[in-house]
């Protein structure tokens, strides 16, 4: 296992290096002058050139990349004279739009996105798997039919519609959940406030995913119920409930976990729409804003972070799969 993790970690390191180099390369090819984007409408050549030097955009691309890489390990200093300042290691650059070190921005955004993703994950796994079980257990009867209505509705409604509808109706019109404008509160400081803050975003995200998981769970359960080993269990005299909840569900677990792991990784990369609607200053909103504003250092950092999360989640999913499915052995 340790050997496996070690080898995968080295592989992951290389992948991240390549991703960062590719992203870096793409940005350098974009038809924008990154220095010109650092000042607004009153950019004079003088300001642009000064910022070009301050940001290191005057250097050749490989040197810029090297500065970026070394910044991660050594930190980086910007500017000169008494207005110089530095971003300590690990530094992913400096955002001139936000006047902040990118690393700090990521550190601020991450807990919000993680809270959003974990809560939504738990919610949709509960609802999705639960409904899937009910639908499979009562195949072609009313619980199954109503769950398929849910699936149809939830998959056809885009997130921005459900999110906005929830926010406007539940919060503003019905006042069921108080409108929280003051921003993120940690679960450790104020658990109730935390839940109030996240409940609608969780529901918004969970609706879309729960539908997919309902459909998947139902199909997987029904397929498994037709397996020979389920017949064997019945032939042993095992009761229907045990057949369903032990033998059948157990077989569906491994693919479900894999799916959940990858979906979770995707969410960390950015639940852009949900974060934007509910004004959650997480990674998704950060990415969206930085793309809109061509805040290249932030886009670069969020892209690399997303790649890291996907790679790490893949590793975790692989290890989980090995735990869940005895046929899979990691070597």
């Amino acid at each position, binding site marked *: 296992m340790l050997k496996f993790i070690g080898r995968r970690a080295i592989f992951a390191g290389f992948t991240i290096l390549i991703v960062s180099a590719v992203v870096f390369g793409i940005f350098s090819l974009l038809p924008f002058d990154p220095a010109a984007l650092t000042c607004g409408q009153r950019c004079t050549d003088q300001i642009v050139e000064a910022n070009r030097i301050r940001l290191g955009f005057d250097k050749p691309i490989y040197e810029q990349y090297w500065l970026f890489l070394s910044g991660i390990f050594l930190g980086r200093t910007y500017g000169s004279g008494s207005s110089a300042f530095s971003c300590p290691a690990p530094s992913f650059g400096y955002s001139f739009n936000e006047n902040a070190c990118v690393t700090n921005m990521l550190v601020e955004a991450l807990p919000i996105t993680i809270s959003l993703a974990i809560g939504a994950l738990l919610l949709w796994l509960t609802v999705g798997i639960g409904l899937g079980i009910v639908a499979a257990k009562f195949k072609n009867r009313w619980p199954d039919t109503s769950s398929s209505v849910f699936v149809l509705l939830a998959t056809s409604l885009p997130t921005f519609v459900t999110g906005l509808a929830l926010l406007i109706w539940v919060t503003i019109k019905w006042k069921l959940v108080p409108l929280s404008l003051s921003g993120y509160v940690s679960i450790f400081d104020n658990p109730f406030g935390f839940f109030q803050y996240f409940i609608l975003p969780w529901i918004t995200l969970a609706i879309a995913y729960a539908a997919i998981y309902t459909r998947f769970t139902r199909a997987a359960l029904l397929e498994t119920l037709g*397996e*020979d*080993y389920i*017949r*064997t*269990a*019945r*032939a*042993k*005299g*095992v*009761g*229907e409930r045990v057949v369903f909840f032990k*033998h059948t569900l*157990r*077989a569906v677990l*491994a693919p479900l976990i894999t799916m959940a792991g990858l979906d979770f990784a995707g969410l960390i990369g950015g639940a852009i729409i949900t974060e934007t609607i509910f004004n959650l200053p997480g990674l998704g909103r950060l990415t969206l804003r930085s793309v809109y504003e061509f805040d290249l250092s932030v886009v670069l950092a969020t892209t690399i972070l997303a790649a890291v999360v996907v790679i790490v989640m893949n590793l975790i999913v692989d290890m989980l799969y090995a735990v*869940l*499915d*005895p*046929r899979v052995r990691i070597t």
Partner: protein
Amino acid sequence: MSELLRIEDLHVSFKTDDGAVRAVDGVSLTLNAGETVAIVGESGSGKTVTSLSVMGLHKKGSAQISGSISLNDGGTFKDVVSLNDDQIRDIRGRAVAMIFQDPMSSLHPYYKIGNQLAEAYLVHNPGKKKAAMARAIEMLDLVGIPEPAKRAVEFPHQFSGGMRQRVMIAMALMNSPQILIADEPTTALDVTVQAQILALLSKLKKEFNMGILLITHDLGVVAQVADRVNVMYAGRIVEEGAVDDLFYSPLAPYTLGLLKSVPRVTSKNERLKAIPGQPPSLINLPVGCPFAPRCEYKQHSSEAGCNTTKPALTGTSPTHRSRCHIPESLRHDLFAKELRELQS
């Protein structure tokens, strides 16, 4: 010999969108202790449906079952057809156990062998975990798994095909059932392994004094282990009798066809004599003899009944009966002659 199982006039049909599939159409048979009774037939002949009926494994909603399946549960006879779910579950795995065709897919891939075996015991002896595990190891040993204690904590994928079928047999025997249903137990296995498994079944039958209901399409297997044979075609038994009667003087044209289609060492240059045509659809069975469209001997029938009436199961000997409109004596001579030609 005590009777373990008596199936009488069993009908099983399944509802489908195209109509009712009459999978089993009036089957009657018996199984005694210490005896191996084979049900032989092509796929779709109703042999597996019959065996699953004995286990009560058909879904209540989809299968319509009539007739009776009397099963000896430690001296008292119970009719599986009329039992409720809990009562059937109580019999399953205890009074009657079953092993299946494909040992690869019949074991749960995610549970350890020992646990899967133990579960069979625990279902009927709740709470006795230690005893269950001990029994599991004992059974593994009995079916010839070396180092049973060690193998018990392994997963199915760590076993070969033959070993898995031994595991399945061990699982079936966990509660010392009186009846063992073996549904194509060797079909998925190598020939050498087949013989071992059949020998094991014979040995265990004696040790446990069981009756084995053997479901197979393989006449070779039948010849090796069966005492009595029921040949099924299109959901009905077309011939029943002792194994020797059947092999040496078959009475149903279908049985003869089966025998003729068995490859023989002596006739290697000849092409296999397959029965022409396909089995009929079980949704719209012909009004006459279901085998009539494929029957080479129709012209010998004195009546025109082949196409209009289904023949009854009759025979001059009560232990050797068959369904055919051609007079039995005529068939006896005709078929015996063909068999002789085939063997020469």
